[in-house]
């Protein structure tokens, strides 16, 4: 639950956020199942998503194999907090960690096979995650639940090391085809959307390939929480065949760094700096309906300061103030329309809980 002030919105608003149902349990000693179903309020109503659903066989802690829909092996935030807003210190996710259907650029969900493991190594723990899946569709959203648009599958991998001191470092990589062509709707007909002029437009994307390379550093101690993640996203477009428009290859830099200080067991003030930057318009991301209003191409900078107060053992009150600065008109979270302004102030008072 939130109460939001926004400098680009005409009214302050109460907002309800995602309702996240999580199921986890053992089928037997070796087999377990995890499901996460999320109800997300939108301007049009409520959208429902199966965010994760996988069955896992654990041979030993070093080797667990799962099949289903899961979060991709991209850094720390995506594989740690999932959809649980109570679990992270801030009210909002970093821009680069937003989900595909909420303006996010990274492929944070995938459907396929995952292998992961973790175990003691020297004075800490080493872990790895490897995914193979359907990968990207013709546009970034919706992510490919049950159909692959490419003959080759996407692969992603991450390796991390957690030290006893609370320091964790890791690297990750991803590769997927950008299949091009038309996005298909559930009834197997080409998907369409209505543009700002009221025209019906078929959703199609360019053909190419996507590479993502990232690194993260996390420092968690009784006093300090410091999270930093960086991803470099490269889009290479195939010129000539089905992508004769000669879309330019693009490089997108995504970074956030969040620092929190646990003043005592209940209060954590924090600050966060974020930057999403691309030098040129990206054909794949621009192909998604609504993408052009999210601030890119260009540079999107966000500065956040706030505090989290543990109201009880299972709920937290969070307050954050955000300043967003962009090269392009912004899409404001509690307004269905983009604004011509390139800056935005927001303050967000939130009460979240989990049990």
């Amino acid at each position, binding site marked *: 639950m939130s109460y939001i*002030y926004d400098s680009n919105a005409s009214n302050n608003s109460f907002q309800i956020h995602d309702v996240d149902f*999580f199921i*986890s349990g053992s089928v037997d000693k070796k087999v377990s199942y995890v499901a996460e179903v999320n109800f997300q309020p939108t301007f049009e109503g409520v959208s429902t998503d199966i965010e994760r659903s996988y069955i896992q066989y654990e041979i030993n802690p070093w080797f667990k194999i799962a099949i289903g829909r899961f979060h991709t092996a991209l850094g720390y935030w995506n594989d*740690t907090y999932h959809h*649980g807003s*109570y*679990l992270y210190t801030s009210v909002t996710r970093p821009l680069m960690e937003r989900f595909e259907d909420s303006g996010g650029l990274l492929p944070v969900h995938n459907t396929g096979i995952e292998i992961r493991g973790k175990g003691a190594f020297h004075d800490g723990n080493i872990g790895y995650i490897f995914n193979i899946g359907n990968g990207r569709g013709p546009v970034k959203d919706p992510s490919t639940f049950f159909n692959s648009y490419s003959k080759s599958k996407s692969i992603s991998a991450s390796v991390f090391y957690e030290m006893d001191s609370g320091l964790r470092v890791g690297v990750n990589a991803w590769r997927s085809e950008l299949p091009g062509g038309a996005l298909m709707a559930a009834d197997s007909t080409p998907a369409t959307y209505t543009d700002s002029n009221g025209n019906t437009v078929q959703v199609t994307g360019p053909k190419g390939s996507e590479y993502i390379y990232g690194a993260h550093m996390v420092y968690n101690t009784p006093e300090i929480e410091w999270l930093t993640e960086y991803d470099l996203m490269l889009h290479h477009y195939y010129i000539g065949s089905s992508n004769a428009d000669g879309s330019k290859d693009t490089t997108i830099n995504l970074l956030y760094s969040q620092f929190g200080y646990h003043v005592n067991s209940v*209060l954590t003030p924090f600050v966060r700096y974020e930057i999403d930057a691309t030098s040129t318009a990206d054909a794949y991301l621009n192909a998604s309906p609504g993408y052009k209003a999210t601030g890119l191409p260009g540079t999107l900078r966000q500065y956040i300061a706030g505090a989290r107060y543990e109201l009880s*053992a299972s709920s937290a009150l969070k307050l954050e103030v955000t300043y967003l600065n962009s090269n392009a008109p912004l899409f404001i979270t509690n307004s269905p329309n983009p604004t011509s302004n390139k800056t935005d102030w927001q*303050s967000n008072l939130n009460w979240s809980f989990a049990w």
Partner: protein
Amino acid sequence: MNKNYLKLTFLVMISLYFNNSSAKAEFLVLANPSIPINEITKSELKQILLANKTEFEKKKVTIIALSPDIPEADAIDQEAMGMSAVQAKKYWLIKVFNGTLETTPITGDSADEVAEKVGETKGSIAVVAKGTKPGKAKIVKLK
């Protein structure tokens, strides 16, 4: 910008800063008699409580914890796990969300209740304040 928000945040933060009551605590490790150890290092214990080690001789370990609402839980969790009781609960929730743990640990509303649950639950382990009567649980010596 709404200045009242900032003023309120500042006042809340200042008042809470002086509310810090963390202190070091001596603790006792209790285990169900089915756990095949009588001694443990502090580092091994931390690995179990952090759910990085989930088995003893291929048998699942069950963590039993003091409820975060008990005043002594903070100091004990800080000493044993390096985090406050609320942080520990959040940490275990993250492990559940990751599929590492099936559920967050069973909790007891007092050290005696935790000891009783450890005595009754096969494969369980817990940390409680020094001086707690173990009941049917056994005391595991810290190496």
